[in-house]
């Protein structure tokens, strides 16, 4: 089986703080990995390192069995959905413009329509991105991430500040992408219930890795579940 991601002894130091301490884990093709942990646990640092935005780390990161320091080609096989996409509210770009920014081959233009349809935002194609609701924008950003047929989708806590209905729709889309289209997913989340429903693997991160394994195994361990649901509750309170 293809190893999609291998992280070996990843350590990241910021001035005065160790953000990540000796983190190692592997993600196989077809996995749906939920990464959980409180705020400041190092999730953003982990993602920044994986995506080539932070190059100052010790240890090794391999995607598709190649060290990311050797080549940036791996980025072409990854779709990334940021936590909260930042853009000028008045930016004169339609939904189609925004999705097309990621399209590497102009010849695959019809792919845009197909994906917008799949994500239920087909009728929004010619609307300006800034006019859409948070939930709709989020689906546009998933569409962007999917337009190049990625093997792996990375999502950074993408449901903060989105209404319940959109969140449910978003979860069902994720489930379908993983089960039907066989896209490997790495997803950091605060929502432990959703993680239980969707993910088949779990990583608990709080500067270092406290657990990594199958979802069932995690939810059998009452102590861990209690600890991380408290952490996620605190996180939740913190957000509101």
């Amino acid at each position, binding site marked *: 089986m293809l190893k999609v991601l291998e992280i070996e002894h990843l350590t990241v130091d910021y001035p005065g703080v160790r953000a990540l301490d000796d983190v190692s884990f592997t993600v196989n093709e077809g996995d749906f990995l939920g990464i959980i942990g409180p705020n400041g646990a190092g999730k953003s640092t982990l993602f920044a390192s994986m995506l080539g935005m932070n190059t100052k780390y010790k240890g090794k990161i391999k995607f598709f069995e190649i060290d990311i320091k050797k080549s940036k080609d791996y980025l072409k096989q990854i779709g990334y959905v940021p936590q909260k996409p*930042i853009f000028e509210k008045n930016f004169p770009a339609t939904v189609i413009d925004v999705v097309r920014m990621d399209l590497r081959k102009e010849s695959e233009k019809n792919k845009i329509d197909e994906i917008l349809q799949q994500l239920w935002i087909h009728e929004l194609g010619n609307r300006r991105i800034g006019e859409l609701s948070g939930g709709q924008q989020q689906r546009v950003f998933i569409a962007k991430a999917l337009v190049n047929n990625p093997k792996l989708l990375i999502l950074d806590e993408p449901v903060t500040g989105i209404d319940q209905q959109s969140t449910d729709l978003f979860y069902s889309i994720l489930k379908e992408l993983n089960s039907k289209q066989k896209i490997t997913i790495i997803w950091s989340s605060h929502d432990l219930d959703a993680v239980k429903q969707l993910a088949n693997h779990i990583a608990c991160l709080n500067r270092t890795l406290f657990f990594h394994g199958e979802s069932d195994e995690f939810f059998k361990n009452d102590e861990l579940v209690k600890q991380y649901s408290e952490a996620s509750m605190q996180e939740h309170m913190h957000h509101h």
Partner: protein
Amino acid sequence: MQRALISGAAIAILCSVVGLFLVLRRYSLFGDAIAHSSFGGIALGLMAGIYPLWTAYGVSLVSALIITRIKDRFNISGDASVAVLLSSGIAVGLVIIGISGGFTIDIFSFLFGSILLVSVNDTIMILALTGIILIVVLLLYRQLLYSTFNEEQAQVSGIQVEKINYLIVFMAGVTVVTSIQLVGVLLISALFVIPNVTAIMYGKGFKQTALLSITFSIFSVVTGILVSYVFDIAPAGTIVLLSIGLFAGTIGIRSTGLVKT
């Protein structure tokens, strides 16, 4: 007159296209800063007896690239770096003018533009540079648009954002100096900014917005040149007032709520 209209229209297109990226990057005054730094270059050329636009290209491009590098390296905010660039150009210019005992007439044509006096060679140069920059923009359209929309995501998608940023600074430098003949050092940022903020209120997609901005800009420039010629008034001021008129009209229409923009 014909030359003035042709080069004016080319400059209108150029300023709209390059300016749209600057405006969307919240870098509206960067054009103004480059223009002011070119003032130093112009003074240098006049003193040394070199064609002042050549020295203006050199000084503006070098200082724009240096200030961008300093801004990235030392984390200085965009508006502060604009202020540094702007004032240093003027300061250098003033000192050089002082040393050489003043050359007021020539300097005036660069401060306020002299489009009606544009030569055949200037016109060819303006058309060539407009062509080159438009080709670069079309070839790198996706990269330019994406890194303007969201730098971080553009970087993750494999775009070399830093290089694209320098390219935009470089294109802005060339555009500003090329446009000096039309509206002069003092009013250049008007051509970069006003047609674009007007178009952003109407346009849905990016291409539509760019085309609208080009249309507004060409209209202001061509009408401005003709009106100023007929009534013998300053072309630069007339052009800028016309584009402000379009902007004000748009704001007016918007606030009545008759047209959804």
